[in-house]
């Protein structure tokens, strides 16, 4: 991202500052040239150009200097602006404008031809980025595969234009481009209709793209077949400006909605993080006071026992403070945590056994994911009331999965009556699913006990 920043910052600067300015001056010049007393249409076109360009400039400058840094959306819009700038400056109107302000643009045929090629290339450049811009929000399924094909097609069309212009037949290439654009638009439109996902943004995109493409098509046809298309030449200049205005309004609109979407996303992830922290803190304070009282109790037995209990608590708390930064830990570490936790709860005094039936342990689990399960078993399992109450942890490998089973022979519960997924368990389930791509199932039978089975795929293990 940094490389892109240093390379593209000057380009973005050109796009941001120069293109609106040039387009504005050009519009003014074209209108002046066309008539000495501008008609209503000219005035409207000119006014809307100024309005849109101001809006566009403000938005881009704000984007540019905002703390969000340069996002790919801004790059894309800058490239589109650059493309359109190219189209403008390389057009006949643009060449005349430059001559008007004193820059000598040669009149030679090959130079004019070069101008047309570059103009077309700029237009294709702007179109590519406009499409990327529109498609990135839509996430069209074909778009992924079509992207490479589309790029190749664009290059092909350019060379077609390039080649055909020797024969003054470049309008064939323009028609081909138009047909392919229709194809793209059709795919996107069908996909949106199919998923019922039409929005103002997508509609706008089609209108603008349709407008600009038709406009270029018509002006090319007009130059190629002037007899048929003479009236078109007159409106084509305005057409470009009006399309441009629509396009700029669209850009502003989209930039703002992207920004709002990004902010919402940030807010949502912050809220989730806060909720996870609250959960962790809830576990912490509730458990902490219990543990401290056990430590005090141990000291009443003997100073040595008290020291041991305090050491266990310290170990546990130390792991707890590390848990914020770590997502996955080796199973061993998590099981050590369980042992510390159980000792702090004096489960052996309460007649509860913790059994580690471990055959495989070379995999990782989310940090602090098994401790809530143990806590649940201790609190709701009713294990101290039963004779020979235990919590057993099995870990073995079978059929390409690591099986991690957490079972107890406590009182169990009716999974239909009580919410089988308390907040703590839900958190553990979610983390296993997200971090290990594991499946998490809970079964319970009243009077018999509870069993939690976690299946962790081996291959994904290797990948993560």
């Amino acid at each position, binding site marked *: 991202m940094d490389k892109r920043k240093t390379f593209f910052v000057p380009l973005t600067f050109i796009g941001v500052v120069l293109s609106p300015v040039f387009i504005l001056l050009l519009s003014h010049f074209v209108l002046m040239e066309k008539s000495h007393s501008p008609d209503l249409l000219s005035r409207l076109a000119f006014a809307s150009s100024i309005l849109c360009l101001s809006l566009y400039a403000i938005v881009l400058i704000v984007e540019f200097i905002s703390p969000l840094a340069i996002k790919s959306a801004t790059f894309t819009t800058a490239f589109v602006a650059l493309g359109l700038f190219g189209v403008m400056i390389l057009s006949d109107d643009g060449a005349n404008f430059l001559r008007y302000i004193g820059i000598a643009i040669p009149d030679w045929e090959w130079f004019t031809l070069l101008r047309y090629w570059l103009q077309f290339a700029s237009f294709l450049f702007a179109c590519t980025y406009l499409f990327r811009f529109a498609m990135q929000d839509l996430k069209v399924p074909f778009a992924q595969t079509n992207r490479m094909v589309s790029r190749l097609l664009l290059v092909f069309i350019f060379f077609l234009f390039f080649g055909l212009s020797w024969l003054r037949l470049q309008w064939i290439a323009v028609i081909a481009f138009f047909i392919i654009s229709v194809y793209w638009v059709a795919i996107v439109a069908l996909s949106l209709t199919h998923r019922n996902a039409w929005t103002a943004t997508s509609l706008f995109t089609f209108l603008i793209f349709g407008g600009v493409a038709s406009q270029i098509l018509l002006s090319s046809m007009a130059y190629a077949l002037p007899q048929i298309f003479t009236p078109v030449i007159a409106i084509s200049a305005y057409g470009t400006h009006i399309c441009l205005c629509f396009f700029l309004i669209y850009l502003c609109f989209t930039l703002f909605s992207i920004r709002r979407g990004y902010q919402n996303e940030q807010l949502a992830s912050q809220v989730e993080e806060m909720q996870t922290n609250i959960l962790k803190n809830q576990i912490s304070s509730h458990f902490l006071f219990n543990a401290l009282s056990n430590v005090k109790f141990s000291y009443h037995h003997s100073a040595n026992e008290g020291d041991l209990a305090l*050491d266990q608590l310290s170990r546990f708390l*130390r792991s707890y403070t590390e848990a914020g930064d770590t997502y996955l830990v080796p199973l*061993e570490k998590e*099981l050590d945590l369980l*042992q510390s936790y159980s000792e702090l709860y004096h489960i052996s005094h309460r007649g509860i056994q913790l*059994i*580690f039936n471990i055959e495989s342990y070379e995999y990782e689990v989310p940090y602090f994911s098994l401790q809530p399960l143990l806590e649940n078993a201790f609190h709701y399992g009713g294990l101290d009331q039963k004779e020979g109450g235990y919590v057993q942890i099995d870990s073995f490998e079978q059929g390409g999965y690591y099986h991690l089973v957490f079972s107890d022979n406590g009182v169990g519960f009716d999974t239909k009556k009580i919410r089988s997924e308390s907040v703590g368990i839900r958190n553990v389930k979610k983390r296993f699913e997200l971090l290990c791509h594991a499946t998490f199932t809970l079964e319970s039978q009243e009077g018999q006990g509870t069993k939690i089975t976690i299946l962790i795929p081996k291959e994904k293990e290797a990948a993560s």
Partner: protein
Amino acid sequence: MRIIVVDDETAPLHLFLEGTLALDHATDYHFFHDDTEKILKYCRDFPVDGAFLDVRMPRIDGVDLARQIIAIHPQIRIVFVTGFSITLEDIDEAVRSNVIGIAFKPLNEMDLSRYLDAMKQQKTILVARTFGSFDCFIHGQLVRFSSTKSKELFAYLIVNDGKSVTMNQAITALWPDRDIDKAKILYRDAVWRLRSTLSDIGFPCVEFGRAVLTLNKADIQCDYYDLLAGKDVDYPGEFLASYEWSLPYEEIIDRKLGR
């Protein structure tokens, strides 16, 4: 052997070292508050072998101090003492190679004994006492096993004199009355706990294979081994008091002593 301790608070480490080194006349230890001048002067005047340094002190940064001391004594062995959860990666690379451990507050005696032995460059020896009841000691501290069965399993490994012990052998000895499936689960539990304990004390002397365990006798000092080797030991008549499977081994001892 000369050790220095630098800490802005006095009590815990000081007490421990005072107690432990009271009878050790070969080790000289000196306590400093966070006074850089004094510390460096001492280091320049005397050959210091090891240092316990607090990481966060009001006047100086522990790691910074370490760097300066290492400049004077490049081979010095350092143990950082800290209340935070830091790891070796958090410590400056220049200092890292001299760090032999990090002791977390609240300090516990087992860890401190281990670091002290490492500082003295004394080999770690596990002392296993089989006469009377079974107990193990390391760095002068009693080894705490997390369950009675894992301790019993370790005893079984010890008296088997380094020969491999299979799961079935262990189950027959330790869980003779249980059904085989339950016994296997309890065996795995004991194995896991033993593995955990040995890893905690930093003495991984058992090779944990698939359904077979092998003890590495090196660095284990055992009264039973001494007796078998013909050394002069005081046998009180009681061997592995609480374990039922000790009978055959008692017979071995009786034969050796000619009773």
